């Protein structure tokens, strides 16, 4: 048995040499068996154990070497310093910039509206009936595609993370085609309802459905670009679409619909082309067994992607809910009636929170890095410290986001005040002095700021694989949005629907905050369960 000595006394020098060799190969050996395995892998045989070391066999020799190897491993100076770990995530400013980058395509659209008088789907020349119809198309396209976009954003990286790019490519096409099919069914149903009910003129319905389908396609392929981190392609798609629309409209005098549809079509094509080329390239570069990767069972993918699908649908529903409630209040030529002062107020509010929203991208990368570090550094007997550190970190992030939100809101407020004071900008002054715009802006800012804090909570919950907790916080938020918005907009002015947004966001931040506290208290378990 191991540790039993036989025959002649071995030379201590020979054993020490073996011990050093074992220590170099394995570090501190686990036991004498580990030493026996290491010795055999160095070519030491039973015959060598007998003839060179005076031991009965390799196991006997290992028993003698083991304590010496433990000692040698303690003395051993590492032959090389541990390699510096590459940064696990980009720096905070870089991540923040990336977060802000998502707003660039929207900013380009806004700039185009100001400079050219139209963007890819808006125009200052639209009648209220046209604007109302297209606004419905925009909102519906966001809500219908958001679930699929979020599910793709979840599933794609799951496969990418294990180098199975072929599966990423397949799941992307599958999600895009399914999303388009669903969007088409919903679009045709809405169009049919609008026409059959007589609520909308047939011509407007057709226009709305075309915008809706093109925008749905655009949001879906943009989700694919986001998933493969092709941020520049998003900007390129926007710019090329606008260029085509501009050339047709301002250059060739083509009608606004045709110009915008062509522009949207080009944006979709550029995005699809870019995404397809990138996905194909990565699939081709995949080697070995990963090339054989087969799709997991459909039920598994469905179950795993379901919370992200529901979250996306609810979240975008929440973003548009107050508008829908406000714009359906009162008697108007169309069931949903676009209100410019309300939209401007909300747009201003949205711009105010860009800084805070951009910081969420920092959280997306910092939270997993923090968890990893804490996990590796905290001894198991100090679990409570580990969990408290998660809670403290999140609280600090909320303070930072709060400060960024305050800065952004103040910046937008003073910038608009400055603009209003500038000579020659009468229209701006008129718009900003509209009491509805001012009120919607103020309450919208409060609502969006709360929503941003709620999203910070959501990032925490997502990072510990608790997507259903986010969904559970969004459901009462939507209910509060609906209840408050409907009650106040039906008993008072239409724009009181914005109070629904604020109330819903408050419910979201409170409910998601409670979920964060619960999860942080058992962050150790949440991390284990997230695998």
């Amino acid at each position, binding site marked *: *048995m*191991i540790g039993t000595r036989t025959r002649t006394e071995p030379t201590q020098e020979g054993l020490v040499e073996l011990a050093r060799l074992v220590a170099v*190969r*394995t*570090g*501190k*050996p*686990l036991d004498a*068996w*580990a030493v*026996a*395995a*290491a010795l*055999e*892998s*160095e*070519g030491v*045989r*039973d015959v060598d154990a007998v003839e060179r070391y005076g031991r009965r*066999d*390799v*196991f006997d020799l290992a028993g003698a070497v083991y304590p010496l190897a433990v000692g040698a491993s303690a003395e051993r100076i590492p032959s090389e310093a541990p390699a510096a770990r590459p940064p696990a995530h980009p720096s905070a400013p870089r991540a923040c910039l990336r977060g802000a980058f998502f707003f660039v395509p929207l900013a380009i659209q806004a700039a185009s509206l100001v400079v050219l008088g139209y963007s890819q789907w808006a125009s200052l020349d639209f009648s209220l009936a046209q604007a109302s119809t297209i606004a419905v198309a925009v909102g519906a396209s966001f809500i219908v595609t958001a679930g699929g976009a979020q599910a793709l954003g979840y599933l794609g990286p*799951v*496969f990418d*993370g*294990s180098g*199975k790019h072929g*599966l990423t490519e397949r799941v992307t096409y599958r999600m895009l085609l399914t999303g388009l099919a669903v969007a088409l069914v919903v679009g045709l149903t809405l169009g049919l309802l609008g026409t059959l009910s007589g609520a909308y003129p047939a011509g407007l319905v057709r226009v709305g459905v075309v915008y809706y389908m093109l925008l749905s396609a655009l949001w879906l392929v943009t989700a694919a670009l986001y998933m493969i981190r092709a941020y520049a392609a998003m900007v390129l798609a926007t710019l090329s679409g606008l260029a085509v629309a501009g050339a047709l409209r301002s250059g060739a005098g083509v009608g606004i619909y045709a110009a915008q549809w062509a522009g949207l079509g080009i944006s979709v094509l550029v995005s699809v082309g870019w995404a397809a080329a990138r996905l194909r390239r990565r699939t081709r570069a995949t*080697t*070995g*067994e*990963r090339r*054989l*990767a*087969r799709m*997991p*069972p459909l*039920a*598994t*993918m469905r179950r*795993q992607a379901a919370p992200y699908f529901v979250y996306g649908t609810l979240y975008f529903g929440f973003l548009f809910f107050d508008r829908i409630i406000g714009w359906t209040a009162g008697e108007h030529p169309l069931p949903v009636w676009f209100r410019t002062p309300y939209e401007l107020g909300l747009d201003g509010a949205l711009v105010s929170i860009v800084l805070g929203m951009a910081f969420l991208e920092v959280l997306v990368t910092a939270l997993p890095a923090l968890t*990893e570090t*804490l*996990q*590796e*550094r*905290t*001894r*198991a*007997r100090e*679990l409570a410290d*580990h969990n408290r550190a998660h809670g403290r970190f999140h609280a600090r992030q909320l303070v930072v986001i709060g400060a960024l939100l305050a800065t952004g809101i103040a910046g937008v407020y003073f910038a608009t005040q400055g603009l209003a004071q500038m000579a020659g900008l009468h229209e701006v002054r008129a718009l900003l002095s509209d009491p509805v715009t001012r009120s919607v802006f103020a309450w919208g800012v409060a609502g969006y700021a709360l929503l941003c804090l709620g999203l910070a909570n959501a990032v925490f919950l997502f990072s510990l694989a608790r997507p259903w907790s986010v969904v559970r916080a969004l459901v009462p938020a939507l209910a509060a949005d609906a209840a408050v918005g409907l009650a106040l907009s039906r008993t008072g002015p239409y724009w009181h629907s914005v109070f629904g947004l604020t109330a819903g966001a408050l419910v979201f931040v409170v409910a998601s905050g409670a979920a964060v506290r619960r999860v942080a208290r*058992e962050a*150790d*378990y949440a*991390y*284990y*369960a997230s*695998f």
Partner: protein
Amino acid sequence: MLCSGLDEVDFTIYAVTAAPEVRLRYELPPNARRIVHVPLWGAVEPPDYILAELPAAEVRARREATTPEAIESGFVPLLGRLLGEMHAARADIEAGGGPAVWLMWRFFQHHDWRTAWKSPLTWRAFVAEMGLAAAERDDDEQPTVDDLTNALQLLYNLLLPLSAPLPRADLVHTTIAGFPGLAGVIACCEHGTPFLVTEHGVWVRERYISVSTASLSGFLKRFLMDLSTHVARLNYLCAAVVSPVTGYNVRWELHYDVAAEKVQAIPNGVDPAVFVSRPKPEETRGRPTVVAAARIFALKDIETMIRSAAVARESLPEVDYRVYGALDADPPYVERCRALIAELGLEDTFALAGHHSNPAGLFAEGDISVLSSISEGFPFTVLESMACARPVIATDVGGVREALEGFGIVVPPRDHVALGAAAVRLLRDDDLRAHLGRQAREHVLARYRTAHMVDAYRELYGRLADRRRPALADREPVFA
């Protein structure tokens, strides 16, 4: 080979693989009736691949049955028992009425794997159990939170065979005394099915080598070895016969409680009609060529082979080394090998050529073949090369000497100078090469033909199939 050779036996292949995506490398013979696939890892939930084979109603029923009460009273005690058994003696396991893995398998025939393992009750119980054990550990083996997370996750993945349905059989035959052998352990306990363990290497020894050198914490290394050792011991305890492919491996098995009377070594065999002596193809003719068939990972010690190529090139500047084998077993190791090739300027001398579609043609490309492993059982590649009349230079590990002595050259492992010098010697001496090649093929024809191996297993299968025992609940002693 075994399936094709024993065409009177119906086989169910119980395939435990690392990833869900696998490619059948061989055409299955008609008597391989069914494949039960158990992937241990994957991009998404590996247990779902097993559940996908079950009726939806049963999957639902399992989930519904896995209540917190069922976990607390049914699963958590079993987990504690498993952790205890990892350090228990055979008698203690027998006294408990059977191994925890068998009882867990029974539990998971009616309960959901993920729900039970991922329950907070399970996590808390595991943390508590490990906390108690931590008091006895050295400071450098005190677990971190990350260690506990990884340890429980390892159990979750590695024990997945306990969630799979067990095909009924007259005999279970495993080719490794590791996690895939759990099917045999369960069959032995549940139905008294005879269990045959064939070992090509010695799994425990290979685990020691790979775990000792892995980038893991002291705690995880210890945990993984405790688990591996326990699983190997269960394989041995339940086996009616342990059949190593070389007598050299028996030394390890005897140290792990395998009774000497249970051991019956059956060496591997190759088909001499497939692996025949052929002339070198046009492509390599005129250039001294060394071939190797080996997956590129640490146990094959390809780095030593690369260094030996540098030694050989000093004497034979035109020498050509070709290593055929999958490159995806250990990608970081492959990169290390590539870096070493570049560092030694061997780009025109040494090629990692990937998978070869025709193993018999592979050896014909070379004048000689090389094996540089630091751990082996009784390698097929050595026999195949010998059958092709290509002399082999191999490291003195496992049963290599048993097969090769007198018919090739055996060198110490990790000795690139000896390996390179031996290659030069054989490549320069045409007569010696031809002589050894002929002798090697004759030796294989005499002792290591597939037919010999198949006949030995046929006899063993027939003997074991008649030795069904009562189910564990009705028998004493528990183990064979």
